[in-house]
């Protein structure tokens, strides 16, 4: 097992493309995400309703080395301050196979 940083990001679903581009530009090759996230935060209620995906979030999980994390940390911050949302960092062990 190996120590990794786990980054969890919750952002408006419509911003997903831009976040993926950000990750790719910065050499992060492994990530997962899914849509249909409802919730509430500073920008009000996201109830998942409507035809436009304007009120629904996406959830991203990225496991990466501490190094990778330090490289993108600042860029993530800039991105989030524009797009809104939440970013949580924690430590995980990666089961190598």
């Amino acid at each position, binding site marked *: 097992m190996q120590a990794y940083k786990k980054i969890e990001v919750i952002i*408006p679903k419509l911003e997903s493309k831009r976040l993926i581009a*950000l990750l790719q*530009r910065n050499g992060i090759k492994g990530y997962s995400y899914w849509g249909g996230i409802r919730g509430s935060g500073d920008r009000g209620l996201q109830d998942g*309703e*409507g035809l436009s995906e*304007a009120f629904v979030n996406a959830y991203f999980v990225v496991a990466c080395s501490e190094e990778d994390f330090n490289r993108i940390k600042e860029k993530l911050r800039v991105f989030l301050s524009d797009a809104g949302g939440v970013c949580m960092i924690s430590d995980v062990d990666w089961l190598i196979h």
Partner: protein
Amino acid sequence: MSLDILVNNLFNPTILFFFLGLFAVWIRSDLAIPSQVSKFLSYYLLFCIGLKGGAELSHSGLSAHIFIVLAIAVGMAVMVPLYSFFILRRRFNLFDSAAIAATYGSISAVTFITAINFLQDNAVPFGGYMVAAMALMEAPAIIVGLVLANLYKQNEKQPGPEAEEGPPSIRMVVQEAIANGSVVLIMGSFVIGILSSEKSVATLAPFTQDIFKGMLAFFLLDMGLLAGRRLSALRQTSGFAIRFAVLVPLANAAVVISLAYLLHIDKGDALLLTVLCASASYIAVPAAMRISLPKANAGLYVPMSLALTFPFNIVLGIPLYYFILNQILS
């Protein structure tokens, strides 16, 4: 006769299903059309309307009259957000004003489709090219809204060297609005309707025409549910927003009706053009604004268009506009 049109429209099952949706929300029912089905229904309606419009156009051919109508459509899509913006700025902040302006400059495809259904029920003919008018009106208002927001924006923290993480460019947003699924589907179907033989379009009729009204009724039920859920967001809203959501569409309608009178536009086409200008977007524009003006309050511009302007138009607006057009156009 006026009342007749209104009552007939009210007791139309499709409109009644819209009210059923509102009612279900009111009694806190868990009735909810699954989101993927609701997307399919909206795509289905665009598919049918586009195909039918194209087939009719390939039938009737082009004329100068068509270009006049298209010019009015695009002109209104640019003018409405401009003048709306300056009205809105008296009460709202920059971002909300720009977003609401874009919302009211753009159009609602569902209102348009409901108006087509209304014309068919009353056996009033209309031109297939109106579909193109609708598609042309989707994007300009977004551009105007964003340009206004950028012109008046000050003191905004400039993105530093990480510019690529910053907000997307206007160009990107507009490009996405033009390529948005609804526009591509209705215009694509429109072109396919033009290219296909009359016979082959006819073989699609059981799908595109016979079950159309039922699908529309089902979809309006969903719209009622959506509008109902958004209604509560209006409680915190100022009376100004509510007045805006009814009066601006009426003003836009008045302008188009006058133009229709002056330029001798056919009754059916005139109604559809009026409805386009009087309607406000709640699908394409919110999606664009959520990304490009994230600081605008989506809890304001979506309920205004979806929970006020939309029901106003389909319940009262359409029969009213039609009544007036019917009186003034021989």
